[in-house]
């Protein structure tokens, strides 16, 4: 018997019991759509995390003094001194796998232009900062190492600052005052959006670290050429854990920490930090996916149940088919095709419902959702698997019937 004829026979059988067919399908429909929704939500969450990581720069290490995370308090006096330009230079040049490093020192300052003013965050950074953070001017240019060395009075503005001070007019080439220092605007950074902590990353101006220290911030920190933190870009081919350990070793030597004594600085891998922060979310997603898979399993058991009922009910039909020349494989294939078609149709309907539900959740803007073309493969694969797996036993049982017994079955 050829496949086309077998499919026709299966179709007729499914149509004859339309209500039962629909009910049996329901389990698969619910299972497949649940799996699709869960996959879309989990993928969306994953993508959101990766986006956050990318917005920091994919392979970014942050080296800071003391144990406190952000500026604020430092360890006891004399133990947690600031890092400085020499540390930045040492990390950039002495560690294998570090592509570049930049220090950063920051503070809040008023920025003034022609009667408009705005208080923003000033970041004094090295020229490598742009490359290290993978963040560049959308217009104009960044500043160069020579300008950092000479303490040039140049500034690159963040998008928010431009909107507040200039509106629609072109800021490049204009002079702004940072505190009391007149600075030339040489560039405008591309838009970066909100950080994962909700602060506006575009409400910032970037100036050479030397200019920030000497002319704008005016901190007295008791260290020559201090920076608050150092950003180091790790080569994509290098192992970040090894690079982290190398930097730790280097800093212990530079800061003269005795063996056995604790570090008075820390090296953080920001990508790892964000991933760890989202670990709970991932586990919740896994749990939901497991629940969806279980509902698919229950759907499959429903299919098996229906197929067993169907083969028992049609025992005489099976006997007749055997009597007129059907081989065992013909009978087995007939019922296998029936269950696969049942599941496959259910899978397609489940796909439509699942994608619809995922799109609806996406439209709520509560969760990030990502609907990928692979969900179609999941739907088709899962339903075909359920059809074959749960259809095999009933089909096999039907094919082993004795034709005489089957014909006599009441």
């Amino acid at each position, binding site marked *: 018997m050829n496949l086309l*004829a077998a499919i026709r026979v299966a179709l007729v059988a499914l149509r004859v019991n339309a209500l039962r067919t629909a009910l049996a399908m329901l389990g698969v429909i619910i299972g497949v759509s649940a799996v699709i929704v869960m996959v879309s939500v989990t993928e969306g969450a994953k993508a959101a995390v990766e986006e956050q990581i990318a917005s920091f720069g994919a392979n970014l290490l942050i080296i800071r003094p003391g144990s406190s995370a952000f500026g604020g308090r430092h360890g006891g006096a004399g133990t947690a001194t600031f890092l400085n330009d020499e540390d930045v230079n040492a990390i950039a040049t002495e560690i294998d796998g570090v592509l570049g490093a930049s220090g950063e020192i920051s503070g809040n300052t008023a920025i003034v232009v022609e009667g408009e003013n705005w208080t923003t965050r000033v970041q004094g950074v090295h020229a490598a900062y742009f490359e290290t953070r993978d963040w560049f001017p959308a217009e104009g240019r960044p500043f160069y190492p020579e300008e950092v060395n000479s303490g040039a009075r140049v500034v690159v503005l963040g998008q928010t600052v431009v909107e507040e001070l200039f509106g629609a007019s072109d800021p490049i080439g204009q002079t702004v005052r940072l505190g009391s220092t007149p600075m030339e605007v040489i560039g405008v950074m591309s838009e970066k959006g909100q950080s994962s902590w909700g602060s506006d990353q575009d409400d910032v101006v970037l100036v050479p670290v030397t200019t920030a220290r000497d002319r704008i911030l005016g901190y007295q920190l008791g260290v020559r050429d201090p920076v608050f933190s150092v950003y180091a870009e790790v080569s994509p081919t290098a192992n970040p854990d090894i690079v982290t350990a190398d930097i730790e070793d280097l800093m212990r030597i530079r800061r003269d920490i005795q063996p056995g004594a604790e570090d008075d600085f820390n090296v953080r891998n920001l990508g790892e930090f964000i991933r760890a922060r989202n670990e709970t979310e991932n586990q919740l997603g896994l749990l939901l996916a497991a629940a969806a898979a279980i509902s698919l399993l229950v759907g499959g058991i429903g299919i098996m149940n229906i197929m067993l009922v169907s083969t028992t009910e049609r025992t005489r039909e099976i006997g007749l088919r055997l009597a007129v020349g*059907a081989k065992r494989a013909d009978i087995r294939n007939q019922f296998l095709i029936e269950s696969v078609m049942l599941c496959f149709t259910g899978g397609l309907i489940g796909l439509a419902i699942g994608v619809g539900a995922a799109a609806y959740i996406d439209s709520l803007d509560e969760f990030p959702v990502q609907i990928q073309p692979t969900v179609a493969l999941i739907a088709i694969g899962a339903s075909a698997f359920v059809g074959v797996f749960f259809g095999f036993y009933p089909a096999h049982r039907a094919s082993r019937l004795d034709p005489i017994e089957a014909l006599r079955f009441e």
Partner: protein
Amino acid sequence: MAAPLIRCRDLTRVYRMGDNEVHALQGVSTDIAEGDYVAIMGPSGSGKSTFMNMIGALDRPTSGTLEIDGERLDNMKPDQLAAFRGRRVGFVFQQFNLLPRTSAVENAGLPLIYAGIEAAERKARAEARLKQVGLGERMDHQPSQLSGGQQQRVAIARALVNDPAILLADEPTGALDSQTSEEILDIFDQLNREGMTIILVTHEAEVAEHAKRQIVFRDGEIVEDRS
């Protein structure tokens, strides 16, 4: 004389029912010639159904040899038996055994599906057989729209559609009134006149009278064989 169409030698069939052994056939030997019309008779439990299942390739003997149309059936595997049935045997049952909610022409063409015949040819051959049994006007009717006699005609058309060597009928008139029974038996008579070998299981003497030869079973043996 030409070789017989069916040749049975010392056929036995033993069923195991728990600890008991039931000897349904105890050494049956007979020949049936091509074109013959045989009625198999006997009380229930006499072995006539077992004999018929054997000849219809639905069952295999426990011992003995069975040859139909030059092929040995006693050592065939289940799938070989299935292929043989599909090719050489047409069945007519007491309860018709038509597929519900399936048209007469599809029912009649069912064996051709398993013989690997294409849809168009299946339809043409099924239609020809339905016309032959006088159902040319009701090709698209479903079993529930047909009378008992009409349903049995569909079943006969189905039995003939593969051009079998033997037509096996198990109490074909058992579910029909006497008037309709006669019509069905007339069809058998006509088919036999055209050369079809027919073997008919019945317990009714009037039905058996239609056959040219009557074989009577009792306790798993042939006790009477008259022509």
